């Protein structure tokens, strides 16, 4: 994985430590039914305004098939981040196929609210 060159359009890219934290929270969101898997469903959550943040895979081939999500996320003021591996993202989402994009949804009164808020702050620091 370290030998491969990452697409420079995949920005902001999480480092190894932050990627582990993101994938762990994605897995917990999947268990709490607060996760939408796939680029189309992530697009719908952004259009409906129920998305907390969007996670995308940087090794998507071609990467352009999910670069409309950062544009939508900027319009809706939602943080977005790239993780290095789509295989790892699929495993974190709980599916056997690779997942190139997923979205953690909003739920008032959820037990994950504080963790989601901390992770949103960490993602927004990458953009500074």
């Amino acid at each position, binding site marked *: 994985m370290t030998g491969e060159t990452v697409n420079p359009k995949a920005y902001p890219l999480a480092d190894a430590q932050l990627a582990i934290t993101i994938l762990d929270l994605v897995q917990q969101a999947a268990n709490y039914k607060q996760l939408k898997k796939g680029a*189309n*469903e992530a*697009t719908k959550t952004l259009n409906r305004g129920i998305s907390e943040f969007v996670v995308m895979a940087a090794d998507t081939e*071609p*990467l*352009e098939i*999910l*670069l*409309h999500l950062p*544009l939508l996320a900027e319009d809706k003021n939602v943080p977005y981040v790239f993780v290095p591996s789509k295989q790892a993202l699929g495993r974190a989402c709980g599916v056997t196929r690779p997942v190139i994009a997923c979205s953690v949804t909003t739920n008032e009164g959820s037990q994950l609210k504080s963790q989601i808020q901390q992770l949103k702050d960490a993602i927004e620091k990458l953009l500074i």
Partner: protein
Amino acid sequence: MATLADSFLADLDELSDNEAEIPEDNDVDAADMEEDVDGDLADLENLNYDDLDSVSKLQKTQRYTDVIQKVEEALNKKESEVLFQVVDIEDDPEYQLIVDCNALSVDIENEIVIIHNFIRDKYRLKFPELESLVHHPIDYARVVKKIGNEMDLTLVDLEGLLPSAIIMVVSVTASTTTGKPLPEEVLSKTVEACDRALDLDSAKKKVLDFVESRMGYIAPNLSAIVGSAVAAKLMGTAGGLASLAKMPACNVQLLGAKKKNLAGFSTATSQFRVGYLEQTEIFQTTPPSLRMRACRLLAAKSTLAARVDSIRGDPSGKTGRAFKDEIHKKIEKWQEPPPAKQPKPLPVPDSEPKKKRGGRRLRKMKERYAITDMRKLANRMQFGVPEESSLGDGLGEGYGMLGQAGSGKLRVSVGQSKLAAKVAKKFKEKNYGSSGATSGLTSSLAFTPVQGIELSNPQAHAHQLGSGTQSTYFSETGTFSKIKRT
């Protein structure tokens, strides 16, 4: 060249016609105000809908005329000039023109809907049922213009405007309609609105033709999958390439889907209707049983190609051709027959040795827990003979063949079993005591197999144990009761 010049001159004539018509409309408005002094509702209706220019403003705008003029100039341009400008397409003014054309086609579509509402409101007095029979705005405008104020629809030739079934339904409905002929000024306004709608539709077709011819530069990957005509329609309906890229794939599948127009006919024979993706070459070459799956696959890959095109990821269209090859491969995979069934061999027999054998103990266990003769008879039914039951008339528990041997009793005489006989024999051997019922009247003479006959003497123990008949209390030999004299 001549036809395009004629259409250009016709546009100029239309502009002059619009200028000439404005005073006439003012005069007609004044006449209406003079005639309809008493009717309040008519005044309100005239104030709302009287002037077409108050609701339809697109053709008057500068942007519309500029874009249409540029489109006509661009269509006249030679092919070599177009090829010369491929080098840097993003800075090309023609690219900006194409982007303006996408926005304009959406505006034209909205304008046609507004004019359709105007025509429908005007023409409802004459033919109220027509709007529910003809749904498409352009078809409706053509039919209204053709019918006009004619009351007998058999004299009107609608061939070529509508399908034959719809023509039949419209003719039958027109013979029973409650509408009345329109006044002349209302009819002239309606026909003018129809003309304007048809002009807008032809302008939209011109814009889409221009976008279609340039589709290889705007969306090369999307055109590689669905073709340039369908790509232009998808972009026109979605409102541009950026909007198309931001749609989910399930929405792209329904772009261009029309309302069902069966007019009372059965839906059993109607085809599966989707939007513009139905018109692609891939969809038409697919067998009908696989078309729904092909439509979903086509929508998904088209969306991915549109997303690649929206940020100009692959101008050469290589990604789109790869998607198209993948689609073809999948559709061919679906059409393969399933693998032939192999003859299945018998399963390997169970080679584990049995833990339980026969033997003496098992036979005794089976005999001990076997079903009784009484239950066997109760479980059987004789043919043709009704059984008795515990509650009578078939209710409760049935007795089967029990009690039908002729005696009428339910008790079954127990047959001899080896186990019972052996148990009885063993029990008899231990009976060493009395041979029968023992009462107080019999003697104590006992027969035992060991000692034989023994005659016992009841007086034998009296001497040994002391006689019970004599009391030692009053005896003279007792030492405590008699005191000796000294």
